């Protein structure tokens, strides 16, 4: 195995120049990931621009010692930092530079120690550090570097390998730490960017210049499965305001004090630097106010004020190109958290709570329709009593609406599965409507009052079973009622049975039903899913 014991400043510069080339190849992929703190789709670009400035300055270092080159790089990063992730990246360089002070060349343990400082510096620049971001990635990567450096194999390559490996795992985990990532179905963009830089540096150390030339960085896959959803623009109607960035130059500047003063003036505040140069990044509704304050402290340079709501719009457009059928969205009426998960995991953009006992209003449906990015919306009422309400929505919106009149949950799911990613809106509405005939619905509930229905005398609280809306079974137990309804369906021709058990039903009961079904019909694929729905003990689909 190849080993490198130490590198000098020139190698350090070349290593990160190579890493910048590597990063450049995945800039657009990283841009597309960007949802936090603002989905403006520029993380990759910002990190690249920051790295370019870092490397340019590295060539102006007074000598070739690691210390001098790292100092120059830190200066370049601070001057050229762009965006949230760029500024945090500049802190990482600053930490490295501090760690390398006085060193002509670097060993594996020097690198590990300096990375530790980078992690500390990265957290320091923020008044409110958030986990599941580039911060977590640099912290966990630094810890892995430390661990490797205290090992027998502590040459530079081994330490860097451990760092890259830990960074990769850390990035894959970001969606578990930051809900906004999980909801958007992405990993953290800044974390991916940092990982890519480290990976590029490792390629250089290992002498894999051909890799850098020929290959492209892989985007890290999340450690948890993620559904793809568009940023819900209309949901958060709070404007994002202006991304305001500048460099403040003066004497005896106090970054901590500035951070404190600006803290209330906006979001995503980062203040980094020293007593002569301070870089500020803030998302604010009133950039004038911020600038006004800081000009009293010194001179401002490289002022950049960008309208983020405009950027968000561009980002949404970019996402539409990358995602399937982004011009169409599906809104579904569902009750029960388990069932809501089922619908969401199949690509529904918005869920309106409601069902048998709680019919949503036209306004509820309208709000959901307006909340999705798409202009063409398919509504799945999933209940007989909601179909008509859903059909009113078209008259209240400029969006195009199609109501697929699913009258039960299984019909709604069958319609969702029939959705054709290649077909247009009208065709999809048609094939979703046609899917109704492929599924039979069984619903089991308890009678709320005594009634005579379909020639059957039903006492209060007796279990009753419906097959496609018709009452066909009465029993004392819900499980027995289900078995009775199942007996009326020709299961020889069925392939898949899905049992969604309700909020008032226990899993073992549902599993008894599925076990006996599997025994009688070994060819059947039987699935038991927690629906969590109120009112119905069981909702069952037979396909």
């Amino acid at each position, binding site marked *: 195995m190849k080993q490198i014991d130490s590198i000098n400043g020139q190698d350090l510069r070349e290593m990160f120049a190579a890493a910048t080339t590597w990063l450049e190849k995945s800039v657009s992929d990283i841009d597309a990931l960007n949802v936090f703190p603002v989905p403006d789709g520029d993380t990759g670009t910002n990190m690249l621009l920051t790295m370019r400035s870092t490397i340019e300055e590295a060539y102006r270092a007074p000598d070739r010692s690691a210390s001098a080159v790292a100092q120059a790089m830190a200066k370049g990063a601070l001057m050229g930092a762009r965006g949230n992730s760029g500024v945090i990246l500049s802190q990482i360089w600053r930490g490295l530079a501090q760690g390398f002070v006085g060193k002509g060349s670097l060993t594996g343990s020097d690198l590990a120690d300096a990375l530790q400082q980078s992690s500390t510096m990265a957290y320091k620049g923020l008044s409110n550090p958030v986990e599941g971001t580039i911060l977590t990635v640099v912290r966990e990567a630094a810890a892995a570097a430390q661990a490797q450096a205290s090992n027998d194999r502590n040459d530079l390559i081994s330490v860097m390998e451990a760092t890259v490996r830990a960074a990769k795992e850390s990035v894959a985990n970001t969606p578990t730490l930051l809900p906004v990532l999980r909801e958007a*179905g992405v990993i953290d963009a800044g974390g991916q960017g940092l990982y890519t830089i480290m990976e590029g540096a490792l390629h250089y150390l290992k002498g894999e210049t*051909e890799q850098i*030339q*020929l*290959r*492209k960085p*892989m*985007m*890290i*896959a999340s450690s*948890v*499965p*993620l*559904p*793809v959803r568009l940023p819900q623009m209309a949901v958060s109607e709070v404007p994002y305001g202006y991304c305001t960035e500048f460099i403040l130059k003066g004497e005896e500047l106090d970054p901590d004090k500035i951070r404190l003063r600006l803290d209330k003036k906006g979001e995503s505040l980062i203040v980094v630097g020293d007593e002569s140069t301070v870089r500020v990044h803030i998302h604010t509704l009133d950039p004038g106010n911020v600038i006004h304050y800081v000009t009293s402290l010194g001179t401002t340079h490289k002022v950049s004020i960008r309208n983020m709501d405009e950027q968000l719009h561009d980002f949404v457009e970019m996402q539409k190109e*990358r*995602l*399937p059928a982004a011009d169409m969205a599906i809104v579904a009426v569902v009750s029960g958290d*388990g069932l809501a*998960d*089922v619908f969401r*995991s*199949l*690509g529904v953009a918005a869920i309106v709570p409601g069902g048998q006992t709680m019919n949503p209003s036209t306004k509820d449906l309208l709000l959901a329709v307006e909340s999705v990015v798409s202009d063409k919306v398919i509504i799945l009422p999933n209940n007989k009593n909601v179909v008509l309400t859903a059909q009113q929505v078209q008259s209240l919106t400029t969006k195009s609406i199609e109501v697929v009149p699913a009258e039960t949950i299984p019909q709604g*799911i069958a319609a969702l*599965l029939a959705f*054709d*990613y*290649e077909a247009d809106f009208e065709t999809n509405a048609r094939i979703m409507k046609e899917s109704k005939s492929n599924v039979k619905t069984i619903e089991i509930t308890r009678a709320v009052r005594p009634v005579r229905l379909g020639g059957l005398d039903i006492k209060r609280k007796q279990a009753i079973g419906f097959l496609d809306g018709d009452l066909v079974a009465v029993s004392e137990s819900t499980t027995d009622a289900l078995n009775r309804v199942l007996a009326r369906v020709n299961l020889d021709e069925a*392939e*898949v049975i*899905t049992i969604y058990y309700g909020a008032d039903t226990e899993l073992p009961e549902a599993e008894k039903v599925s076990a006996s079904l599997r025994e009688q019909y070994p060819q059947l*694929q039987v*699935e038991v*899913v927690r629906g969590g729905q109120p009112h119905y003990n069981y909702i069952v689909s037979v*396909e």
Partner: protein
Amino acid sequence: MTVKIVTDSVADLPLQVVKELGITVVPLNVRFGEKVYRDGIDLTTDEFYDKLARSKVFPVTSVPSPAAFAEAYDKLAKETDEILAIIVSSKLSGTYDVAVQSIGLMKRKCRVEVIDSQTATMAQGFIVMAAAKAARAGANLDELEAIVRRNISRVDFRAAFDTLEYLRRGGRIGRAQAFLGSVLKVNPIITLKDGVVEPAGRTRSRAKAIDHLYNFALSYSNIEEMAVEDTATPEEAEALVERLSSKFPKERIYRSRMTPAIGTHTGPRLLLVAVQGDRG
């Protein structure tokens, strides 16, 4: 002089077709742990799926070395002065870049053009076959390029997966990411669009997924080539060929196995129908 055609192992071309049409296939590499195999050469498809099912380490693929392409080009350059390489989608593999850069490493002088097929499997294979046939009939390199570009939009495939886990792990999930994380067990149907993995449909059972493949073939008004490929379920593939024979002569349907380089990213239960023709 006849233009020579080069492709990579992802085209899934049956050996007999390769021989008959004089196509040069450059293999990708498949690595299990420390052991590297040349796709389809050092490791047969059967051995691979057997290993895939039993091995604790997951295989990874890597692009052919620039030297592998340069050698292939140089060897052909003894017989021709024009070479056309038709390569797996550059969005899925770096093979295209290697095929282009290798030109600079050639020892002999010969014009080489490289085209991104924007697809994979026998869909790519059909483009290669059509080019090889036209080359034999005397088409020059410029004419062949035009033929290839036209055929890129005329080939397509649908593949039925049991799981997208392998695609996800390999980082090639593309827009089919939308199919991940389903609470219900679903059988995803995948295709490639502009070279990127694209979701085509979902069913609740394997049988319905195979129906989807069948209906895809039926949606064509004119079929010139058809192939049915599997990874490790030959009986299913044979049954599908039987069904499709009502639409297209059975003896003209190519039966192919997915090459290990693809299997690495799809897993062992993949069934695929590829068509060249006109839809609608």
